[in-house]
Structures are given as C-alpha cells and as structure tokens.
C-alpha cells in the first residue's frame, strides 16, 4: 500500500494492476461489490472523481472488494439538508463544519464530537480566500484595505445563502481586526464599507464567478483559492490574476462519516477507510493537484510553488471561537451581516 507514496508511473500502476488481478484470482473468498455515497459541495466534483478511482484501486488491494463511490454535489447547506431529510450519504465532505454540525444538532445522525474523530479537525485538505482580479490588476488591488476604495466593485456571494462565502466575510473581518487599533467595532465598520462596494449578491459561489467572469461586473472576486486557480486554468491565464492578501482565513472544508447511515448499510469499514485515505500521500497529492492545500508536509513541500504565501492565516477556532459562535454572531438573524443592510 505504501507503494502509493510515490507518484504512480506507468510501470508501477501496471505492476499494481497485475497484483490486484492476481489477488482477485488467487483469493478464495468471493469478492463483493460495495457502494458508498459521498455527499459533497459544488467545486469538489473533479477532485473526487479522480480520488474515487485511486481509492477503488486501494480498497481492492486492501480488502479484495470492489467499491463504487457515487457522488452528489450541490451547495453545502442544501446538501446537508438533503442528508438530514433522508439522503442516504455514507460520508459527507462539505464546505464548512457548521453544515456538518447540523447533522448532529438537527437529526442526530452523527455524534456531536464528530470533528475530533479524524486528524486536523477532520479536515484533510484546506484552502484560503484570495482575490481574483482582471489581468494586469488595473485597479491596483493588493490587500483588503483596497477593496473599500470608491469605484472598486467587489463580487462575493451572500454569506446568508452561501456557506463558502462565510469564509470570505470572516477573512475580511479578520484582516480588519489585525490592523493597528482593530476591534469588533472597526471590523464591523470595515465590512460595512466592503459590502457597500458589492453591486450584486449572488446566492452561490458559482453564480458570483459567472457574474465576475462572464458578465464583466466588478473589479475583484473574493474566491476560494482552489476555485480561483480552477477559474484561471479553465479561462486562460491571460484574463485574470490571483492576488494574495496579507491576512486571510484558513478555509477548512471538513469530512465525516454519517454513522446512522453506514451502520444501516454495513459500510462503516469502507467509509472509514475512504476518509482516512484522504490523509495518505496519494490522497493528499490528488487534493493538491486540484489546488487544495495539503496537510501532509512532504506533499505540501512538493507543491509549495503552486500556492502564493499569505503571511497570516487565521483559523475559525482561533480567531472566531468556532463555527457555532461565528454563525450566531455574524450570520444568524440580527447578526452583524444583517446590521450592514440596516436590520
């Protein structure tokens, strides 16, 4: 299994395939086919397509069984609600812990301490919030402070409807806190000015990207780093630049088993391994290839040149006291975000 530590080349995978076939032929126990469902959020589609293939090979090698991983993608909150209302997910891989918390608080599908079950707060890969600007950076945008200048149009989805966009809001708040003399009042004032410059509040990240890229609205798109790189890769590097601010937030999209469902489906072992394997060098490498920041230091070193360095990355737990508190303070009804729009 450690063979996977190296980057698979043709010979190696050929040898592996032969090994898998020989095991399948030689082993007396009949190989079974198991199916699991991974309910994830929008931009992970291509990442998990590749990861599922690698995991199928790994699981065949380990257990002799064939595993078919079905994927479901959509807005993070909507996906969580589907699982609460009965979508039979074996594992969930969502954009923020708040949405997985809901599986525990709204439906008791998972234990409340789910985030302690896997390393790094159950977050095998991370990202951060960066700026996507038009080629050549005509509005000279380099840090959060530039976003509140008059005449700068900022595109970001509504944090009320987009889980991913809550990270954007908190990153802005975090930068303001870290400025000389920064406090809650000055941070609130800063985000108020920032959202004054937002001409369109899309309901999700994909919509915001379309508004910025296709409609040509705004001068800067606040985006997850992996989505910004994907946009540049798909649309061509001659159209957009990625700007890393001085302070941002470590976006942690966590993963969890859905205990009640795996026990019903008798898929706990394979689902557990599915999540564990995300932390393996192979899983980390695939994540990095899809522009997520890997946790594994060796893989991180390998891909170090791919990511811009951001001097200070705040964490949701360290700077905001966890999601439950952040949600109540900022995004619930009458929270700081509602106050911005005069409620």
């Amino acid at each position, binding site marked *: 299994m450690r063979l996977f530590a190296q980057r698979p080349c043709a010979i190696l995978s050929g040898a592996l395939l032969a090994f898998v076939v020989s095991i399948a032929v030689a082993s007396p126990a009949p190989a079974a086919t198991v199916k699991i469902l991974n309910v994830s959020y929008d931009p992970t589609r291509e990442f998990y397509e590749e990861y599922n293939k690698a995991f199928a090979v790994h699981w065949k090698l380990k257990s002799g069984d064939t595993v078919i991983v079905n994927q479901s993608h959509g807005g993070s909150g909507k996906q969580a609600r589907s699982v609460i209302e009965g979508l039979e997910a074996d594992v969930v891989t969502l954009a923020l812990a708040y949405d997985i918390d809901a599986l525990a608080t709204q439906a008791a599908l998972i234990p409340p301490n789910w985030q302690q079950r896997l390393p790094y707060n159950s977050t095998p890969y991370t990202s951060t919030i960066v700026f996507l600007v038009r080629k050549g950076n005509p509005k000279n945008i380099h840090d959060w402070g530039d976003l509140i200048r008059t005449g700068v149009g900022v595109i970001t989805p509504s944090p009320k409807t987009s889980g991913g966009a809550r990270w954007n809001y908190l990153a802005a708040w975090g930068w303001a806190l870290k400025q000389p003399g920064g406090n809650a009042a000055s941070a609130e004032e800063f985000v108020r000015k920032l959202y004054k410059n937002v001409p369109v*509040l899309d309901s999700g990240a994909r919509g915001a990207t379309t508004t910025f890229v296709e409609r040509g609205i705004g001068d800067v798109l606040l985006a997850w780093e992996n989505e910004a790189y994907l946009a540049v890769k798909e649309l061509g590097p001659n159209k957009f630049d990625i700007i890393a601010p001085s302070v941002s937030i470590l976006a942690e999209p966590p993963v969890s088993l859905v205990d009640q469902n795996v026990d019903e489906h008798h898929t706990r072992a394979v689902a557990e391994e599915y999540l564990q394997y995300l932390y393996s060098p192979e899983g980390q490498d695939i994540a990095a290839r899809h522009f997520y920041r890997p946790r594994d230091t060796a893989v991180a070193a390998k891909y170090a040149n791919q990511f811009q360095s951001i001097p200070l990355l705040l964490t949701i737990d360290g700077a905001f006291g966890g999601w439950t508190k952040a949600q109540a303070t900022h995004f619930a009804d009458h929270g700081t975000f509602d106050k911005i729009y005069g409620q």
Partner: protein
Amino acid sequence: MVTVAPRRVLPGFGLTLGYTMVYLSLLVLIPLSAVFIRSFGSGWGHFWEVVSAPRVLASLRLSFGASLIAASINLCFGLIVAWVLIRYSFPFKRLIDAIVDLPFALPTAVAGIALTAVYAPNGWLGAWLKPLGITVAFTRLGIVVALTFIGLPFMVRTLQPVLDDLDKEVEQAAASLGASAAQTFLRVILPALWPAMLTGFALAFARAVGEYGSVIFIAGNMPMKSEIAPLLIVTKLEQYDYAGASAIALVMLVLSFLVMLGINALQSWASTRHGER
C-alpha cells in the same frame, strides 16, 4: 314517493368525487398542511417576528408587485401575440407558434442565465441600453423582465383557443351595424375574451410569484432592494430555520390564494355578464 336521482350520461359520480378528493389531498392538501404545521413549529412569537421583519415585507412587496406588473404586461402583449397567430397566416407561423412555448419548456436556470447574459452591461442588449441610462440586469427591472418572459406562454396558450372560436362574422356584423374599429374591439371582442384573459393573467401571475430559478441570476439579490421572497425562504433554510422558512411560505400561500380567489370571482362575474348579453 321516491325521488329518483337525475340520470347522468356517464355514471359514477361517487367514484370520481372520491377519487378527486383523495388525489387532491395527496397532491395538494397534505403537503400544504405540512407548511402550516411547520410554520408554527416554534410558536406564534417566532412566526410573527419572521413575517413582520422589514426585509421579509420588502421581499413580499417585490415578489407580488413584480409578478402583477409582469402579468399585466403579458395581458396586453400576450393578446397581440395570440391575435396574430390565430388571425393571420404568414411564413414560419408554425415555427413562431412553437417559440411561444420555449419559456415554459426551458429549465428556469437556463432562462435566468440567458436573460442575464443578454441584459448585463456587457451583453447584446445591455450594452445598448447602458448609454441610455437603463440598467436591466441586477435591478428590479430585471426581475420584471424575467417574470414577463416565463409568463408569456400561459397568456398566449389560454387565449388562442378562445380567439379561434370567435367568429369573424361577429366583427363584420358589428362593422355593418356602424361600429368603429375601436368600438368593435372594446364592445364586441374584448368582452368575449375577458374570462380567458383573466385565466391567463392568473396563471402567469401564479407562476411568477413562485419563480426562483430564473430570477435569482438577474435580480442582484440586494436586501431590501432586489431580493425576492423565495430567496428569503432559501436563506432561512440555509440557517436550518425550518419554521422561519415555512412562515414566509405560509404568507405567500395565503396571499396567492387570496389573489387567485379574487381573480376567480372577477372571472365568473365577467363570464356571466358576457353570457347575459
């Protein structure tokens, strides 16, 4: 004396009524009663707090106001489209007739993306409108445009069969009796069309009130300005506030029902009045 039930041509009133009640209950009443029950899940206080919030009121005003405007626009221009398609023959008539159905058949998200692409400041039409100081995409105007778009087939398709039934001789008779063109239209044609126009209006309006997919892309979604009520329902759900979401849904349900009831009353008044003449 034994009273004999009046004989019907087709028997089975009891069976069909029973079937109707079961069918309506399963499809309509049971899901809607779930909205009622859920909206009061956390008590009257929460319900009132949700539905009386300024942002919710603003979104309800916008949703119902924009839907009324859009249905009114369709009332006028849908009539013209139906008239042309029924009364005249011209090349590619069948094709144009089929195009009318497109807004109905298209996935709403596709409609929203297409409209936004056209009306955005860098779009085909948006680029022309921009120098005139008119912005459509990401404003309330954009919402009306999207709702008019999706409502059009309802008006045209409701009016077509009625127009088809309307004899041309009636118009000729009116003319021979000395009525002017305007009089013929206002006193002869319009009264015959009123019930169908109201039905089309009601259908277009009802569709527009509940519309989410196409509006969300073109609206801009700014709180208090261009945020429709269905978006606020989604917003509440995003916070796992099921009771709050159902509360807004319930208000929309009751308002829609009242409007429909009003339109139905108007319609039966219009058709009796027409029938008496």
